[in-house]
């Protein structure tokens, strides 16, 4: 009937490192990241693109990785929460989330960090409302969002200050 191979080999760059792997037709980018590359930071929440817990940066744009077929990402560059900051040197966003107490259960935080980084990369001085808009696709059932917004505002300030010092 068709000449589609059930498995396809793809090459993708994740957090700066190239990986060559075989993927199934119905495998999502989220499945690939979590199960094959062992990057468990991106979370499997709703599975339908509504909760934002699986958000990653794909070729410069934030996407719900649960709705992207892995087979379509050949040659792409992907950044997950593991590619932002390090245990030794936290990203200002991670530092601010800790300092403001914005993390409770933590399940939504990787997606929040990715969406917030995407905002701050293009808008270093957002208003509170712009932060709310940028995080509209990220659901948090614990915090009530106030401290998350404060954390992003604080991170923006930290990043502006460190840029000015440099």
């Amino acid at each position, binding site marked *: *009937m*068709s*000449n*589609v*191979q*059930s498995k*396809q080999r793809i090459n993708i760059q994740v957090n700066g490192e190239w990986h060559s792997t075989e993927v*199934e*037709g*119905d495998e*999502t980018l989220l499945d690939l990241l979590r199960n094959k590359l062992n990057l468990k930071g991106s979370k499997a929440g709703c*599975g*339908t*693109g*509504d909760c*934002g817990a699986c*958000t990653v940066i794909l070729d410069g*744009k*934030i*996407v*719900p990785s649960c*709705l*992207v*077929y892995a*087979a*379509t990402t*050949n040659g792409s560059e992907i950044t997950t929460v593991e590619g932002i900051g390090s245990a030794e040197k936290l990203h200002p966003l991670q530092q601010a989330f800790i300092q403001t107490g914005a993390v409770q259960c933590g399940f939504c935080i990787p997606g929040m960090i990715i*969406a917030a980084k*995407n905002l701050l990369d293009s808008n270093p001085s957002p208003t509170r409302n712009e932060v709310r808009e*940028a995080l*509209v*696709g*990220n659901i948090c059932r614990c915090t009530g969002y106030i401290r998350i917004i404060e954390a992003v505002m604080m991170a923006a300030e930290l990043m502006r200050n460190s840029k000015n010092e440099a």
Partner: protein
Amino acid sequence: MRHEIFVPRTENELFNFLDLNGAHSKLVSGATDLLPRIKRRQEEAIILVDLSRLGSFRYVKSEGGVIRVGALTTLTDLIRSEVLGVEYEAIKKLELTFASPPVRNIATVGGNLAASSSSEDLIPIFLTLDARVSLKSARKERVIPLVEFIRGKRETSRTNNEILAEISFNELKPNSWCTFEKIGRRERVIISLVSLACTLAIDRNSGRVGDVKIALNRVRGKIPERALETEKILLGSDLNESKLQEACEILESELCLTSDFRASAKYRTEVAKNLLRECLTHCKHCIEER
């Protein structure tokens, strides 16, 4: 259910594949509609053809008074396109009403139209712009009105070896404005209970309605349609209070909104009337302010 995926890199690859396997395949690009449906077992897919790598169907351009939108243009790219001025407010407002930023980065214009259901925001908007769609196969390309493309709930006039390639519409004339309102159970990231799109043109000399197009989701059946009787009554009017009242009454008689688990028909009808009044007044105000 397991399924296979084919990711064509060129139009040739795509059309050759569709000629052989079109009948057993489903087309996706962002898959933001189909993949959740597959996961919920509402849809069976044996082979998916993912078009997201075909850059040649991704553009928004203006040519000789016609706006052309490639079907694989993402919602983000459509909303932010500089080709569309402020008068295309209906499209600009999708930044507030259509899903979330990550979903808008992969959901496509063609996918939203081809999904052909009552919850698709782009259908009423493009209906009021009198849009046409271009369907392309290996051997030919045909252009049909959007209203003929949308045949019913999840049913379009695309044949198995065709793809929805382009959406086009005439540029709005001066003294025109289009807007869109959507009411859901919360403000953002929600399927609409009622949505209404409206394009209004005011005649420069008389100050009266020169052209008006109104489309709602769930008018008679389960797909968005134009409210043609309401449009008729508004044409040539100055949109005074009694005319707006009359238009609301006609809209109520013309609509056949249904109740479901999201909202009652009565509620939907009241909201639709309010949206009609609000959108018409808003469009008129924006035209006068320009």
